[in-house]
């Protein structure tokens, strides 16, 4: 084997505290090293060209570059050696900048250490083998989990480019949280006016297969070849027959069902269509309340249904879909704010969440847009908005800012003044966060134009009192840090701007997708700054609040971004896998099954070869972590590029001097 060593000055970054010439000279004494030199900027264009020439001139089989971190320039130099005709894995780097020159001033020690790190790289390189990526074909369909605005955008963009889309939505209609909103900031345009057309597009786009009222049961396979099992939860209404006429929803005798779409501030019937613009506009029976299903009595809806669509004994159905990529757009849920006992912990009827207030203000809501107090229906005079309920609060484990509450609270305050001109709106806040275009101007408008009183301080307690006229009032006690006083507002209604967290069940969906997630249920992106919509699992992308708090424009942008990533993935006819995966030596394998047990990706299966059971690695699923190699007692399975022998060579080079 003939190895070339290139020791980089990196300008002065390395040369300042490492004698690169000496390192190059020492490198020549190492086994199989036939050429070594120190260069000013190895990663520069001339630097790389110099390597290519040296490979050709000396007939080198492998190259070691001693310079910066492989996390920085390993891909660069791999392409260089590939340009010179070598396999890109016949290359090793010694990190003599971040790990040597930058962290010590003792030149002699640094030079000696650099020489040793080059020796490690040489010893590993001498045991490297050329590796070749494998090709495999791709199912050009994408699974979008979640029908909120991010999911809708991703689905529409993907369908637009000709990719088949399978959308799975847990609720009986798509639209997610945005469908519940009355108006959106900063333009106060009607939420359903902008959303409904997109929802219709989803329904009508031939490329999109929509599974509403369904959940992902299991995911197996790998990028390009996922097999997804979808559980179509029983709706007890045959959606093919149902026309959405709504007759059944009027006749159903059970009226006390809490209306989940309206955030439980009103009740609906046991058979229900969430809201007029619902897509699909189909009825669904809630089995926990339907008398027919529970006690076998009633059956009114079946009688009145013009198309006979009611099926009381319907059961869940499992459907299988083959897709090549997955976009998770599962959105968010509000934090359980009832832990705040000082705000009544959910026992005070007139202390409601912002989403409930939004439903109250919405024309399609239970109060047809009129603001009435839930307790006694009175039009409230003083309304207090409290920001950061369950956000920026370590004591309940939600230290982060939820991002868009300041903006929608300003909008709700403005809408309150619209609906009730003589009402007073107070907003208790810590810091107003209005970072978008026209955002701060919007909050400024709320204060100046609509006279919303912003009080900078936390609310310490909401205490119900009985007013002289016998009505219940709420003393909202807080501080006004700007005036340095404590403040009391005698409020009729309190709206809490409740923080957001990952939607319920996000955790076990993450486990099915084999992506990691944090304590708050948000999915972990591959890199917080540079790869926000990708995950560490190939073929799985994120869009919207499921990745972290963000407002609608950002969610839509991420929806398009995720779709773009999928389009890029499907643009190539075949996919290539990372060749740094495990390989089984079938002569040594005794099929003890330990590797199969520990593989975090279930990438190893048991196969039969000539009557004997052996382990086999699915190259495309294996991510090259090497846990199997550390587990196999007889070393029969070796992860390429980090085999036992390669690592042992480095250990021995250090210890058996």
């Amino acid at each position, binding site marked *: 084997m003939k190895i070339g060593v290139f020791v980089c000055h990196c300008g002065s970054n390395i040369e300042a505290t490492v004698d690169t010439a000496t390192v190059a000279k020492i490198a020549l004494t190492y086994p199989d090293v036939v050429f070594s030199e120190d260069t000013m900027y190895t990663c520069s264009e001339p630097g790389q060209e110099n390597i290519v020439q040296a490979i050709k001139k000396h007939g080198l089989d492998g190259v070691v570059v001693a310079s910066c971190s492989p996390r920085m320039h390993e891909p660069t130099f791999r392409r260089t050696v590939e340009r010179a005709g070598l396999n890109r894995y016949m290359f090793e780097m010694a990190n003599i900048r971040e790990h040597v020159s930058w962290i010590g001033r003792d030149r002699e020690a640094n030079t000696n250490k650099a020489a040793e790190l080059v020796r490690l790289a040489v010893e590993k390189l001498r045991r*490297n083998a050329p590796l070749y990526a494998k090709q495999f074909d791709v199912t050009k369909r994408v699974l979008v989990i979640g029908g909120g605005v991010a999911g809708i955008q991703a689905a529409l963009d993907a369908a637009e480019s000709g990719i088949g889309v399978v959308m799975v939505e847990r609720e009986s209609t798509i639209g997610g949280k945005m469908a519940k909103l009355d108006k959106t900031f900063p333009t106060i345009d009607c939420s359903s006016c902008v959303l409904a057309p997109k929802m219709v597009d989803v329904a009508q786009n031939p490329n999109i297969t929509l599974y509403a009222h369904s959940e992902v049961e299991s995911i197996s396979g790998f990028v390009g070849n996922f097999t997804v099992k979808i559980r179509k939860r029983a709706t007890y209404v045959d959606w093919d027959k149902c026309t959405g006429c709504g007759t059944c929803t009027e006749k159903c005798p059970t009226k006390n069902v809490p209306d989940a779409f309206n955030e439980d501030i009103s009740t609906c019937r046991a058979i229900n269509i969430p809201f007029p613009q619902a897509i699909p506009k189909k009825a669904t029976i809630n089995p926990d309340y339907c008398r027919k299903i529970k006690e076998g009595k009633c059956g009114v809806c079946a009688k009145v249904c013009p198309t006979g669509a009611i099926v009381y004994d319907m059961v869940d159905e499992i459907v299988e879909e083959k897709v090549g990529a997955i976009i998770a757009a599962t959105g968010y849920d509000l934090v359980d704010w009832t832990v705040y006992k000082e705000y009544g912990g959910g026992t005070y009827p007139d202390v409601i969440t912002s989403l409930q207030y939004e439903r109250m203000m919405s024309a399609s809501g239970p109060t047809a847009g009129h603001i009435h107090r839930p307790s006694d229906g009175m039009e409230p005079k003083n309304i207090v908005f409290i920001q950061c309920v369950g956000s920026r609060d370590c004591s309940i484990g939600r230290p982060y800012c939820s991002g868009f509450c300041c903006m929608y609270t300003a909008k709700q305050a403005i809408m309150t003044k619209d609906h009730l001109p003589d009402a007073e709106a107070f907003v208790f806040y810590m810091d107003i966060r209005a970072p978008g275009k026209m955002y701060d101007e919007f909050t400024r408008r709320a204060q100046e134009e609509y006279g919303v009183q912003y009080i900078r301080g936390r609310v310490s307690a909401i205490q119900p009192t009985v007013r002289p006229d016998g009505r219940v009032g709420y003393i909202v006690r807080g501080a006004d840090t700007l005036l340095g006083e404590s403040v009391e507002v005698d409020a009729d209604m309190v709206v809490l701007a409740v923080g957001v967290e990952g939607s319920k069940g996000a955790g076990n969906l993450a486990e099915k997708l084999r992506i990691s997630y944090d304590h708050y249920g948000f999915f972990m992106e591959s890199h917080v700054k540079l790869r926000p919509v990708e995950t560490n699992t190939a073929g799985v992308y994120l869009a919207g609040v499921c990745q972290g708090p963000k407002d609608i424009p950002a969610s839509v942008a991420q929806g398009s971004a995720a779709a773009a990533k999928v389009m890029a993935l499907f643009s190539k006819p075949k996919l290539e896998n990372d060749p740094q995966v495990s390989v089984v030596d079938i002569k040594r394998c005794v099929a003890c099954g330990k590797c199969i047990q520990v593989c975090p990706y279930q990438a190893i299966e048991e196969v039969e070869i000539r009557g004997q059971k052996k382990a086999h690695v699915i190259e495309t699923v294996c991510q090259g972590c090497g846990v199997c190699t550390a587990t196999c007692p007889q070393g029969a399975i070796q992860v390429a590029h980090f085999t036992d022998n390669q690592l042992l060579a480095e250990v021995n080079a250090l210890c058996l001097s």
Partner: protein
Amino acid sequence: MSSLLFATPKDLTSWLAKLASDHRVLAPRQEGPSVVYRPRTAEQLASDDIDALLRRATASPKQAMLPQCETLMTFKSVKDAEDPSKLTTTLENPCVAEPTVLFGCRPCDARGFVVLDRPYLEGKFKDPYYGARREATVIVTQACPSAFSSCFCNWVGSHPSDKEGSDILFTAVEGGFVLEVVTEKGQALLEGADFADASDRAADVEAVHEAAAATLPSPSTLTDVPAKVAARFTDIAFWEKETVKCLSCGACTYLCPTCQCFTITDEGSQLDGRRLRSWDSCMTPLFTLETSGHNPRPTKAERMRNRISHKFSFYPERYDGFFSCVGCGRCVVSCPVSLDIRHMVKAAVEGVVLDAGKSGEPAEVPASEKAEEKAPVEEVKAPAEVAVPEAPTAVPTEPVEAVPAESVEAAAAEVVPVEPVEAAASAAAPAQATPASRTQKSAGRTTSRSSSKSKAKKR
């Protein structure tokens, strides 16, 4: 008769202590329950109590002549200044043996070296390393006071006071030891040791030897063992049945004074390394594993067949009927599952009918005929009664019809050349010295220790 000398225990240890000044004195030493041969210094020998030195060693003294791991040669390479791809390699061959006294082994151990001499020293190529040590070593053997239950030296033509292979044979008698010089080397060693003449003690010595012989198991009644074992070769079912309980661990081969196989490997790195010869065991699968992954002896049955056949068929075939087993019984005592080579050989031999040409056996069976013609009639030491050795436990045995006891001790036949470096059954491991010459392909590549060709290619 050679002269007999008498030495009290004190004389013996002080004589050994004196020898230790210019010899490497190897003597048995108790370490935990086992006894091993260790080089002893003068002070240690002077202070050792004598019966520690007389214990029988758990492992054989083979280490003295054939160390478990010895450096055949060292190699250093220096890169050429101008053209670093050129290497100038220098080899060193440290083949030097220091004068050694091997004290306290038993007649079967001594005879073991005679068995080893044939493949290592007779024939065209003499093994220089073994030869040098053999030459430099004087073997002082103790006549066995009594046979262990596992001993069967009389089955293989020896007896507890057999002098073959020893330079001095001493027997423990009342009050001390009677030393009998066997060879000039023994005589030379005794220079300056003013031991009293002990010719008057000859009778006591004879009595001890007779008493020892009495404790031997009854002599073997097996005849034509090499031919019959060879005939049994194809009956694989037999070997499978016999090796049901074998763990194929290889302990027997490492304890055996006559197992002679070794493997050669290169250790260290390309620029500075060593070529090592170390014991190998035919009982391990790696012994015959080929590079392709195929293994001619995949299961323990084939391996046991090879071990038994080598000792009782191949070796006698090549070396005039001498067995490659000295009957020390170590493999029986230390076998984790107490597998008994005597039962196995007996079972292998019994039931094999050798009349030429009829029973499908190979008509011409060279080994046995050669053994009959050449066997000089020698005074048979073992008592003549023919009862089959009555196993001490309740193993049902019926008497075999009387067959004249036959000594298989034959004169040295014409020697077949043995190429020492490429030893009979072992294989040299691929020279790992030039790892650079071996690029590790990603899948399906294995170099195991016993692939036959050495791939040390120097560029």
